[in-house]
């Protein structure tokens, strides 16, 4: 007994020792893990380099692809100071040079420093030559320097010779960015494309950034088809005939198989993402070249292509930028650099060939120009402007003097750049001023009221959008204010909105007061004849009568959004956000289907979600307020969106009936959907168990059932799903906005109504329903004669239990 007790005691002691050992080991493991975590996960912060290299997608990178553009961005520099930026090759050859200005935070915003990497441009020639071998065999460094500071940043060019690429070219296949209208045909060259494939080449209006799903709308009316032979991977083909070409900036996009008429980054190479692919320009003349170039700061990074918002008037606290896409090919645009001068304003008569240019900002900036077309991407030229009247000159070689027919001036008459307060300013603008205005009634879901009039009011910082049918001559009412007591009492006022649209001059009489009455102004030409969310920068001018014949003086400028719709809006009022969204998403589309396709493909951009309870009251207002809804809201929202553009779409609800089987079977309790819906990663319904049958129906056995616990949408009989139909050119196209899907073709030949069962649902099921509804939930007979609540994979369910008996239908929907 004692022995046993001792043995037990010894064992217990031994056990205690072992337990202690285990605990110590565990503790040691925990301590080691803690230190490992400290070492691995909590690395000491590495001091960030002030220099960044960006690719043309605006991504900060250390490596650049051939044919891309290198942008530089630098921080932690002296504010409002000029810095020299150089791209140096490993053999110390200078590849590129610019002298750029820092902003008031001491930063150089993203600015192009090397265009078309891997393309060699010979002095005096606008076309280049591909030389990837040369470019990838070197390393590069970016050197940023001033007399007091110097930074270097290494980067590499990636060897991706075999990546499919496409670029604009001259008739010899050499890369060319600028083509002269009427003299040079535009060619496209493709390399490393799949042998034997067919490609659709689209010449499209330049866009800053192409996103997956963007519809391709060729300016040449039709795409060019390229059929590659079984052993052919390259091509050169004419894409635009010289006499048909239109002045402007364009991109080329290759729509590769499968053809969808849309851009997809992984399949469709393009020329022009974040830059202009190529320009069509007029032949240069020996005369002065004037073009607007001072503009607002670009949108936040990534760097934007030159589609700037031009303006002439800046406040002293507002940085002055320039960007230009020359519409004229000057006499000497073949170099790599141009200088930008801000000079004191001169009348046109004083611009003499060879005149010395004197910069007033602390020295001219040197910018890198896009070879061949001389595009100057956004450049900050004056961080802290001083009040005064100025002109801006883009100076091409020979530098430092004004060269007629080569240098570009903004502008000779009137003043190119006004810094400071004008004598007279516009204070308020009414767009929707009454029945005759032609403006769409817009409603604000936040205030639950119509957008207030005047829509633009400088005194309270209000800028609400306006909307008109495309191609409308717009009449607005504007009110003005004299800021200077010396300003004339009677003046002629007009405005330039950009895009070739001006407001016709009107006489405004202050009649001794500081503020004028509202004066009607009408556009000289109709609004753009296409769908667009036009972000116009309104630059106002005044002149003392008689006009024309007197000096034009810049007044203030302001931004204002005007939507142009396809047809007269079908919804009154139209909610502001849907109007703005659809005018942007359906830009340029001029047929109902294209508009609906654009809206459905971009619906996710609204940020609105599926899976949120349907609101009470005004559904559109409710969806905008709460950020989404269920299908009963979404099909109304889609109809409202299309209605904003004057496009009618039908709203249809298919209600699930549960009478498609004799008792005790129930077909069906519910439709079951696994997709989370628009902007929802997963269904918002709670997870529950489902007895899924994925392979055998009818008469599944117990072994055919898989129990899954998942979040799914379950809509009971009595409920169902809401969708839209567009009736276009005799065909019905189905859209399912709740899930951002569509169009679905060949579902019904006529709008469904009443009860539909059996073979009446065949096409609807094959081409839409069975893809959208994953399972049907019912009380189903098993092979052994018992019954169970099951979710049957929709595709397993036939139209009829007995193919020769229409009364044996398996699914019954009622349409409302």
């Amino acid at each position, binding site marked *: 007994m004692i022995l046993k007790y001792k*043995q*037990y005691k010894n*064992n217990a002691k031994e056990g205690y020792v072992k337990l202690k050992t285990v605990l110590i080991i565990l503790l040691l493991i925990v301590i080691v893990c803690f230190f490992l975590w400290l070492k691995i996960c909590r690395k000491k912060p590495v001091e960030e380099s002030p220099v960044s290299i960006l690719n043309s997608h605006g991504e900060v990178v250390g490596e650049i692809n051939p044919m891309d553009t290198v942008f530089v961005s630098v921080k932690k520099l002296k504010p409002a100071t000029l810095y020299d930026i150089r791209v140096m090759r490993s053999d110390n050859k200078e590849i590129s040079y610019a002298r750029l200005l820092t902003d008031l935070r001491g930063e150089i915003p993203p600015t192009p420093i090397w265009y078309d990497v891997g393309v060699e441009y010979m002095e005096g020639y606008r076309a280049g030559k591909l030389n990837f071998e040369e470019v990838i065999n070197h390393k590069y460094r970016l050197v940023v320097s001033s007399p007091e500071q110097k930074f270097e940043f290494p980067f590499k060019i990636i060897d991706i010779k075999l990546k499919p690429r496409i670029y604009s070219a001259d008739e010899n296949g050499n890369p060319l960015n600028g083509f002269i209208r009427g003299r040079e045909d535009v060619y496209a060259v493709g390399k490393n494309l799949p042998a034997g494939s067919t490609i659709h080449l689209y010449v499209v209006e330049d866009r800053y950034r192409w996103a997956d799903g963007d519809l391709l709308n060729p300016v040449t009316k039709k795409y060019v088809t390229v059929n590659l032979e079984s052993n052919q991977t390259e091509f050169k083909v004419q894409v635009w005939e010289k006499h048909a070409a239109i002045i402007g900036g364009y991109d080329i996009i290759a729509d590769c198989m499968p053809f969808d008429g849309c851009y997809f980054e992984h399949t469709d190479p393009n020329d022009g993402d974040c830059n202009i692919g190529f320009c069509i320009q007029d032949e240069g003349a020996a005369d002065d070249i004037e073009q607007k170039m001072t503009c607002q700061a670009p949108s936040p990074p990534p760097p934007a292509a030159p589609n700037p918002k031009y303006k002439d008037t800046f406040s002293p606290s507002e940085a002055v930028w320039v960007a230009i896409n020359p519409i004229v090919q000057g006499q000497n645009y073949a170099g790599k650099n141009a200088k930008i001068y801000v000079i004191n304003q001169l009348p046109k008569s004083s611009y003499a060939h060879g005149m010395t240019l004197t910069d007033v900002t602390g020295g001219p900036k040197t910018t890198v120009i896009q070879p061949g077309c001389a595009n100057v991407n956004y450049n900050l030229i004056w961080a802290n402007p001083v009040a005064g009247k100025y002109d801006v000159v883009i100076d091409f070689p020979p530098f430092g003097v004004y060269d007629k027919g080569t240098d570009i001036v903004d502008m000779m008459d009137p003043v190119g750049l006004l810094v400071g307060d004008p004598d007279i300013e516009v204070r308020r603008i009414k767009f929707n001023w009454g029945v005759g205005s032609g403006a769409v009634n817009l409603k604000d879901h936040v205030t639950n009221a119509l957008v207030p009039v005047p829509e633009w009011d400088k005194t309270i910082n209000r800028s609400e959008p306006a909307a008109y049918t495309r191609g409308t001559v717009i009449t607005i009412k504007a009110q003005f204010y004299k800021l200077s007591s010396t300003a004339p009492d009677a003046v002629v006022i007009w405005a330039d909105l950009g895009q070739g649209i001006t407001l016709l001059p009107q006489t405004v009489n202050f009649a001794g007061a500081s503020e004028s009455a509202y004066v009607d102004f009408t556009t000289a030409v109709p609004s753009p004849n296409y769908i667009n969310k036009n972000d116009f920068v309104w630059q106002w001018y005044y002149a003392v009568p008689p006009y024309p014949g007197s000096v034009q003086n810049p007044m203030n400028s302001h931004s204002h959004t005007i939507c142009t719709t396809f047809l007269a809006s079908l919804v009154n009022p139209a909610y502001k956000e849907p109007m703005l969204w659809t005018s942007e998403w359906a830009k340029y589309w001029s047929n109902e289907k294209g508009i609906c396709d654009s809206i459905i493909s971009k619906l996710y951009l609204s940020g609105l979600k599926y899976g949120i*309870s349907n609101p*009470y009251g005004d559904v559109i207002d409710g969806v905008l307020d709460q950020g989404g809804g269920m299908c009963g809201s979404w099909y109304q929202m889609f109809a409202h969106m299309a209605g904003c553009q004057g496009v009618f779409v039908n709203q249809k609800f298919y209600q699930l009936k549960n009478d498609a089987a004799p008792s005790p079977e129930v077909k069906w309790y519910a439709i079951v959907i696994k997709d989370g819906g628009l902007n929802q990663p997963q269904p*918002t319904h709670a997870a*529950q168990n489902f007895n899924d049958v994925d392979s055998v129906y009818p008469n599944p056995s117990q072994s055919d059932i898989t129990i899954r616990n998942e979040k799914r949408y379950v809509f009971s009989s*009595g409920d169902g799903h809401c969708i839209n139909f567009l009736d276009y050119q005799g065909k019905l196209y189905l859209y399912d906005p709740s899930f951002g899907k569509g169009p679905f073709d060949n579902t019904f030949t006529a709008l469904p109504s009443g009860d539909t069962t059996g073979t009446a649902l065949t096409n609807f099921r094959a081409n839409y329903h069975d893809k959208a509804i994953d399972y049907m939930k019912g009380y189903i007979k098993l092979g052994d004669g018992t019954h169970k609540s099951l979710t049957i994979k929709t595709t397993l369910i036939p139209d009829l239990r007995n193919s020769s008996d229409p009364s044996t239908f398996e699914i019954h929907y009622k349409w409302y």
Partner: protein
Amino acid sequence: MSKVKMNIRYFIFILFVLVFFIGCGQKKEEPSRIARQEEETKQVVGYEANLAIIQDILEVKETEIDWRTIYAATISLRNLKDKRTETAFLKIMSRERPISLRKDSDIPGAMNPLNMLKAVAMESLRETGGKQYLEIFYKTYKETDERILREMAKAHILALGGTLPKLK
């Protein structure tokens, strides 16, 4: 033998610790959720209970309800020719105050919860009361801002031989 026993104890101890930690990471299943996962056929717990569910919702203000429960209860009473049921359905038809769903509740798809219940109520009233409820269908047809409900009211009016009133 004793060593083996001790080893088993240590093994059980470590297993217990592991299970404890794993258990901490698991979210406990809510009992009500488990209950709600039962098949719909078992959800119908009897006439009185279902009527009570509907009456509670109609009479108690600011109640947050579970959609599946109220909808299943409403469906179960559909087409019952019974004064208390008809009274409940008439109350649904006259209700204007929105129904608030519990945060974790499922959501109906086609309409808001109140209009979904009205759709069931209309169907039932037509089956049980026929033309005597035409006025209710007229009122719904004229006044509702819900397209589907209006279409349903229209179908009931036409089925009962009524004439569609003019819309505003």
